[in-house]
């Protein structure tokens, strides 16, 4: 059987609602909080259809997935389907009792995000008082012997804290520490001026993370994700369009990545209207950037396209206006000048505080 297009992971975005409002939020920028969320039965069916397609990993995410009160049912079903289920959360709102229930229903792991190693700074970036509750949640995860990933989105204001972040991860007994630089799409692109670190900041952090990776090998996995803006070549976004991942968004759209529906002219299907296998194999949206027929000449004439698949389609669109262009992060892209000028801007504005543009809270859960 052909494994070239086989999804291994379903990313279930259960809701766009979230009590936090980080300036690099992964929600679509235009989201106003009025969309209808698909119901429990639909999710249960989607999990089953995903498993039949070959999915073995399930990420329950959002927004903030804890705001769904059917999370227990979803975890239980996922466990019956032998899906390796990871809860990706801010940790708010949660009680120890609810987390214990998740564990006993078969949850396999928890990823908690912190915005900074310092409480006031973390709360400022999150736009809500949350740091101390996150600490408690991470301690509960460890107490329940669930694997813990501590995730930090890095940007200009917190990237210099990398040693403190590593120490915090060690203190909460994390199994994995994800030091992931913001990628400049969606909200992060809107706030790029305030977020993009300088090359020097990135290099310093990368070196420290690499040392930690060796130091903790076998006990804590340390992952450092470079911002695309400082890579010479694009990464293989989602390991290739429609190859390994399916995202289902809160409204039921099945997507190759969580922002794919922000690209103009693409048609995506809703899981309430069409079976997931049919969508995966036959829908226009999923087939749009599969194979190499669509590749721009720059990529077609370059050996790297078998590894990076032309890079990120959303980045290509948001920078060049053309979703079929080479990812401008690539030094071979004709639009690479945009990335170079963003880097220059970052180095010139180093040290100058810039205000974040926050998502407004109307329609989101109040704490």
């Amino acid at each position, binding site marked *: 059987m052909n*494994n070239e297009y086989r999804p291994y992971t379903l990313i279930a975005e259960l809701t766009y609602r979230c009590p936090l409002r980080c300036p690099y939020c992964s929600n679509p920028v235009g989201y106003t909080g009025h969309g209808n969320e698909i119901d429990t039965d639909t999710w249960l069916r989607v999990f089953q259809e995903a498993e039949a397609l070959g999915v073995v990993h399930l990420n329950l995410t959002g927004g903030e997935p804890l705001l769904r009160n059917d999370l227990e049912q979803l975890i239980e079903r996922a466990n019956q389907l032998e899906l*390796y289920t990871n809860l990706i959360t801010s940790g708010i709102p949660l009680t120890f009792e609810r987390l214990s229930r998740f564990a006993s229903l078969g949850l396999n792991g928890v990823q908690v995000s912190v915005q900074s190693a310092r409480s006031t700074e973390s709360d400022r970036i999150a736009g809500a008082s949350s740091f101390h509750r996150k600490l408690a949640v991470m301690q509960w995860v460890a107490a329940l012997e669930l*694997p813990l990933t501590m995730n930090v989105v890095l940007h200009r204001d917190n990237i210099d804290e990398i040693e403190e972040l590593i120490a915090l991860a060690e203190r909460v007994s994390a199994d994995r520490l994800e030091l992931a630089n913001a990628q400049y799409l969606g909200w992060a692109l809107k706030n790029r001026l305030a977020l993009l670190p300088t090359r020097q900041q990135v290099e310093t952090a990368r070196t420290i993370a690499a040392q930690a990776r060796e130091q903790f090998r076998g006990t804590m996995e340390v992952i450092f994700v470079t911002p695309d803006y400082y890579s010479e070549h694009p990464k293989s976004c989602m390991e290739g369009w429609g190859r390994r991942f399916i995202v289902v968004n809160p409204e039921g759209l099945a997507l190759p990545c969580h922002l794919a529906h922000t690209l103009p002219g693409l048609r995506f299907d809703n899981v309430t209207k069409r079976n997931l296998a049919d969508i995966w194999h036959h829908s226009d949206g999923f087939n749009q950037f599969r194979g190499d027929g669509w590749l721009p000449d720059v990529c077609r004439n370059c050996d790297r396209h078998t590894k990076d698949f032309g890079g990120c389609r959303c980045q290509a669109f948001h920078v060049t206006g053309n979703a079929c262009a080479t990812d401008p992060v690539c030094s071979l892209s004709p639009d690479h000048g945009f990335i170079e000028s963003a880097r220059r801007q970052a180095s010139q504005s180093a040290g100058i505080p810039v205000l974040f543009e926050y998502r407004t809270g109307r329609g989101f859960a109040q704490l």
Partner: protein
Amino acid sequence: MTNGMTGDIARPQLSPKVRLRLDRRTSRYLLLYPETGLELSRTATEIARLCTGEWTLDEIAQYLARVHRETSLVEITRDVRDFLKTLAGRGLVQNFK
């Protein structure tokens, strides 16, 4: 030690974060852990299944040598140790250095 035995008394055990499951699409076993997984060969699957915390490395190798008579104990011990080292490097097995 002769016969390829290591004398190692530790009893390796898969980490709590690891799930071993059949991949119904390929009929091979997958070792799943957060964000990713490993597709195991038949031998690797046999070794992983014996990492229960009850067997020493030598006992695992001896057992496999009885099942795979065409392969020497020395070779099997080496394979088991290499595989466990790979797992340990990723934090997927406990009680093994």
